[in-house]
């Protein structure tokens, strides 16, 4: 049915006419800047360019999923730098480690949205203009429409037309009726009727809502923030920039905008499935916290779970990670305790929680000490190597390598607390030393000792605030509503033409031939066939009900009555 095109309706609103976009490229002579700009704008807002931009958007997203991204996997980026020394700087230069913040990606979506605006805004005006416009005149030959029917009625053409107008009006079609011109008998009189203007409304709503989503995301980028804090059981933090591990503010946010709440991690519980094929799979995580919304406010308790964040003072606090923090006590050569605290270790695998970490003891005498360690929650000796067979700490063992010398802390360069810079250090123990709970390792040469006194758990919390959230959700719902409207409503036109029947019998009642035809512009979800058929049936029975019985019919009824 797409072949039947009335010029004032385009398929999806986008300027569908290909010749304009293709043929009118300005030549080298006689075109000024204005023409070039106009040509460029027409190109940009053409459906073809919009399609190409859509493909580019999809294509541009691919590296963002295949390469580690700074935003959600900074460790992966470092790893990539190590394993691809030559390639990584080049990729970085192209912004491929931060695709969704890269200028070229922004260029694609901004062009796409410009194209969208260039298309949607004129359409909105056109829709507003057409709100009162009448349907077009009925085509001359209704039989050529995709759906058509024809029958004779015992009514005068004008009567038949009036009945048709009533039926279509009852179905809330917008009607246009030919001016009664008795002088023009040949073509006959007609009604054209149109319905389904909401389709275009839905289509526009969808596209405008997508713009709204973009604006909401920008809003979050400007006024939102995200922060991280690792908290060992018993630890407390205040929501200030100095007390957070990481603070990523939006462009218009500073540390003074943070709500002043404090959170204490009382206890962290992790439970795991202990038997069956899913053994070791986590069953539940609970971070039991006490928090104060501000300095003077009362302390409340809350159980933060993975799908159950804490809302406090406009921010939300999420549980995003957990792990073990073995507690070590280190005494130096003088016999003084120079280190006694839980040390967070990072798990390499969530399946067995084999975790790695380092202990830095800068205050030890005569020289600073360092240990790189592995925490094994449920240790089993498998063929001489120590493995963890379960994520819970059922049989905790630590394995330590001790170093002495310069920790490199004073060199000025910032250091990760999870890595030991052994460049200026000597290894004190020849091989990893295993310690069970309570056991002590004496360092050779009387340099001191380290005791594995216990372990605690830590939880990693994310604190976020995103003012674009609610607008984004609203726009998302509006986009969906617009989509459904534009798919489910069909814009359709039906036409009625009536001409006097050729009179063969002078005694016959005045009669007319009714032609009924229709077409749906975009029948995305189908169903116009059925609608047209039922409309045709209704129209015909209305005509029959309105028509006086012919002599023949009266006679036949009398016969059956007798």
């Amino acid at each position, binding site marked *: 049915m797409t072949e039947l095109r009335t010029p004032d309706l385009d398929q999806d609103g*986008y300027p569908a006419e290909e010749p304009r976009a293709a043929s009118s490229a300005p030549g080298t002579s006689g075109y000024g800047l204005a023409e070039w700009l106009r040509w460029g704008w027409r190109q940009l807002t053409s459906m073809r360019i919009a399609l190409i931009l859509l493909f580019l958007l999809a294509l541009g997203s691919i590296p963002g*999923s295949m390469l580690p991204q700074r935003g959600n996997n900074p460790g992966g980026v470092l790893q990539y730098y190590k394993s691809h020394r030559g390639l990584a700087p080049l990729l970085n230069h192209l912004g491929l480690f931060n695709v*969704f913040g890269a200028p070229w990606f922004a260029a694609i979506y901004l062009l796409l949205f410009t194209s969208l605006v260039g298309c949607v805004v004129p359409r909105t005006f056109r829709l507003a203009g057409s709100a009162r416009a009448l349907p077009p005149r009925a085509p001359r030959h209704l039989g050529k429409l995709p759906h058509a029917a*024809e029958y004779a009625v015992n009514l005068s053409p004008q009567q038949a037309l009036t009945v048709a107008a009533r039926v279509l009006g009852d179905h809330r079609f917008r009607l246009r009726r030919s001016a009664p011109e008795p002088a023009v008998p040949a073509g006959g009189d007609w009604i054209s009727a149109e319905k389904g203007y909401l389709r275009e409304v839905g289509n526009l709503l969808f596209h405008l809502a997508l713009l709204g989503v973009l604006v909401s995301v920008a809003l979050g980028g400007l006024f939102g923030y995200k922060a991280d804090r690792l908290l060992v059981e018993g630890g407390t933090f205040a929501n200030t920039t100095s007390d957070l591990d990481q603070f990523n503010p939006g462009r218009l946010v500073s540390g003074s905008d943070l709500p002043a709440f404090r959170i204490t991690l009382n206890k962290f519980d992790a439970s795991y499935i202990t038997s069956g094929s899913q053994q070791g799979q986590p069953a539940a995580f609970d971070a039991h916290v006490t928090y104060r919304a501000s300095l003077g406010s009362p302390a409340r308790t809350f159980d933060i779970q993975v*799908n159950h964040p804490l809302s406090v003072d406009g921010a939300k606090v999420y549980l995003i990670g957990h792990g073990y923090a073995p507690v070590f006590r280190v005494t130096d050569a003088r016999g003084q305790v120079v280190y006694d605290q839980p040390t967070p270790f990072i798990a390499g695998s969530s399946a067995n929680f084999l975790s790695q970490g380092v202990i830095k003891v800068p205050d030890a005498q005569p020289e600073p000490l360092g240990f790189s360690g592995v925490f094994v929650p449920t240790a089993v000796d498998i063929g001489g190597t120590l493995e963890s067979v379960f994520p819970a700490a059922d049989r905790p063992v630590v394995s330590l390598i001790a170093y002495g010398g310069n920790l490199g802390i004073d060199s000025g360069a910032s250091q990760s607390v999870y890595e030991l810079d052994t460049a200026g250090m000597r290894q004190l123990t020849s091989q990893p030393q295993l310690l069970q709970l309570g056991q002590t390792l004496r360092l050779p040469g009387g340099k001191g000792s380290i005791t594995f006194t216990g372990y605690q758990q830590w939880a990693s919390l994310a604190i976020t605030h995103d003012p674009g*959230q609610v607008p*984004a959700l609203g726009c998302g719902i509006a986009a969906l509503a617009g989509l459904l409207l534009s798919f489910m409503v069909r814009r359709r036109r039906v036409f009625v033409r009536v001409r006097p029947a050729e009179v063969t019998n002078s005694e016959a009642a005045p009669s007319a031939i009714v032609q009924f035809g229709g077409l749906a512009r975009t029948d995305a979800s189908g169903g116009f066939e059925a609608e047209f058929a039922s409309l*045709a*049936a209704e129209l015909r029975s209305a005509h029959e009900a309105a028509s006086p019985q012919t002599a023949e019919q009266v006679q036949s009824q009398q016969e059956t009555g007798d």
Partner: protein
Amino acid sequence: MPVNLALGHVSNDFLIAALAFYSLAVLTFAGDFAFGRPRRAAAAAAQHPARAMATVGGPESAVSAAVGTAEPIMPELRVPPLRALFQADAWVRGAMAFSTLGVTAHAVAVITRGLAVHRAPWGNMYEFVTALTCFAAIFFVGAMIRYRAWSLGVFVMGAVVVTLGLTETLIFTPAGDLVPALQSYWLSIHVTAMTVATGVFFVSAVLGVVYLAVDRYNRRVAAGRAAPGNGIVRRMPTLEQLDRLAYRTVVFGFPIWTFGVIAGAIWADQAWGRYWGWDPVETWAFITWVVYAAFLHARATAGWRGRRAHYVQMLGFACLTFNILFVQVFVTGLHSYAGVS
């Protein structure tokens, strides 16, 4: 609540039964192609709607003619769908009976699995594919009845059998509990929408393949490189009908996919503290959405209708499949729940 293992076994048995019924359905659909009654008349009427129009006029048959000349989506539009089914060839009736039995057994398998694990039964890759093929089969059997599209049964049900069979043999996962990240009622909203939409896109992809195959044959005939009158193509709906059916299928799936992405964003905000973070799986859901949007627009763009639009649709399904089979399994991200080892 512990997993009900007995019910889990019942589910597995029903799935085997569903596979058996589907296979019989495919064989019977193929038998219809080989031995069934020819359906030339309907095909001829469908190819020449304009000619059918010309015969309209007699007042007696006017209304029924109006129905009959309404462009037929699939053959035999004059009668209501169910009656058309009962009037169809014995092969078709048999195949539809097997399909219906298969869909019923499949649905029972999915439901009992859900009852066994006390949650929506799509928490890992095995459950996901089992459920999405179930939705695809339900949707397609409905579409077959509504549009009398029996000729397409062998292709779509064939794809369902292959997919379900591979799932059953390669990635079978016994009934079990979920990790904490998935313990949320959003599982039954977000993943349900994604599963249904994937099932629907599965059907449209098969229709797209059929469209491209018929289109290729027609062009070869036009170029004189193939003999006209291929028995299989002759029994198929016209290109226009195939195009419209595939389009309507995408139109049905696209809003569900959109809803699924939005629901996923809400869940991501609950679980991870941001509604959109370009996690690999999120990124591919976005790419899939963009490509299907491009298909919807391509159909309205001169020079892109028909074959090229369906290539776009194929691309969309390729992205979808890549996301499920590659990104969720091999790329580390927050969505690594596939449980495929």
